[in-house]
């Protein structure tokens, strides 16, 4: 009975396909009425293959190889010495967050393993990063999260007119001597502007970040930031974040998947190696029952 019903279905399908194939409309290009005619074709912009000269030019850039770690004690110090010029509403929220943190109830600035986002990654990260140069691009790769990644285009392109908002925005850069100047727009309004892991609020849109990144000493990298966040700051905020270099191979950056911390590795009843959710407090701590 089941076989007969399959046979009938296939016969019906064949008949329909045959009718479609021999109908006049299938043999001719579709005729669109003027109102739905395709938009004029925009020329496709190609990313050209790098030349030998492009690679040779990379060798002239300053040496930023190695693993760069943040100077967290300086991040801590700047909370008091160089706070952002919060507007009145933002200041109240931040003061409340500090009070909550002091009371042992740190607000969840980072939750669900979302990226810290730009520029907060530069401002408060506790983890290492590495910086790669390739023709037309500088790439920053952060430890501890597969999406902690910045693509900075140095091929002369402009920002898109209306970039899709993302956690790290759209970045274009150029070299002024040994300083990389980076301009970033298109950051998600939900991305926090944070000054610690427990104090930060959504930028609420229209954030613009300008960075001047350069070696201050042989193994010290400075990221000079100017952060324009008109929805939460009264004026542009300037700050410098310090990273120090390590070259020992044992400190090479390793893969880190943030959400992995929400699971335990176990072997199930079938003998399969699986991830099992762990129970946590509202602050994300693993706690045994």
């Amino acid at each position: 009975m089941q076989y007969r019903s399959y046979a009938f279905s296939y016969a019906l399908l064949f008949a329909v396909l045959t009718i479609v194939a021999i109908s006049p409309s299938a043999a001719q290009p579709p005729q669109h009425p003027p109102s739905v005619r395709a938009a004029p074709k925009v020329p496709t912009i190609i990313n050209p293959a790098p030349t030998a000269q492009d690679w040779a030019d990379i060798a002239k850039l300053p040496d930023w190889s190695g693993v760069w770690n943040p100077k967290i004690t300086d991040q801590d110090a700047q909370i008091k010495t160089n706070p952002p010029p919060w507007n009145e509403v933002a200041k109240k929220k931040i003061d409340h967050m500090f009070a909550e943190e002091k009371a042992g109830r740190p607000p969840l600035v980072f939750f669900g393993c979302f990226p810290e986002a730009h520029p907060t990654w530069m401002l408060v990260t506790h983890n290492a990063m590495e910086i790669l140069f390739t023709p037309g691009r500088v790439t920053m790769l952060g430890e501890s999260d597969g999406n902690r990644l910045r693509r900075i285009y140095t091929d002369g392109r402009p920002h898109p007119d209306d970039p899709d908002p993302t956690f790290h925005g759209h970045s274009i850069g150029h070299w002024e001597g040994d300083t990389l100047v980076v301009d970033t727009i298109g950051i998600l309004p939900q991305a926090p502007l944070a000054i610690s892991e427990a104090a930060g609020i959504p930028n609420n849109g229209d954030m613009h970040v300008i960075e001047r990144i350069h070696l201050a000493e042989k193994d010290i990298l400075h990221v000079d930031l100017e952060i324009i966040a008109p929805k939460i700051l009264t004026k542009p905020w300037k700050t410098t974040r310090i990273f120090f270099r390590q070259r020992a191979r044992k400190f090479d950056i390793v893969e880190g998947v943030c959400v992995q911390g929400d699971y335990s590795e176990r072997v199930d009843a079938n003998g399969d190696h699986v991830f099992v959710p762990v129970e946590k407090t509202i602050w994300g701590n693993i706690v045994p029952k």
Partner: protein
Amino acid sequence: MKRLFRSALALTALVGVAAGISSVAAHHSTTMFDHSKTLTINGTVVELRWVNPHVSLSVDGKLKDSEESGVWVMEMTSPGNLVRAGGWSRSSVKPGEKVEVDFSPLRDTSLKGGALKKLTIAATGQVLTANIRAQEMPGLE
């Protein structure tokens, strides 16, 4: 055998039930720990979870000056940072090893959790710490 059974029980206790788990913050601040206090536990390692964003060590034992025993979970920074903080690897300490751990407990004292400050491995006397701010200089070896 008894120890094995107890470890298995502790492991089971560590794994939450999938149902009812809220959206949690894997990556978090550390002020839910009371850093003004240091407690010491002597016990047996149940598990070292070498994962991002926070490595955790669970120890089954007794707090100093207490007769109550149980499994405590101590959290730390990330694997990469612990390597840089000095001496750590995912096999630094193994299940079943006797250890002493100094830690700052959670402010919510109903929960057996804390932030690890110092781990001493009884058999070797090796001491491991977890302070990432102590490693802020270029070219560390």
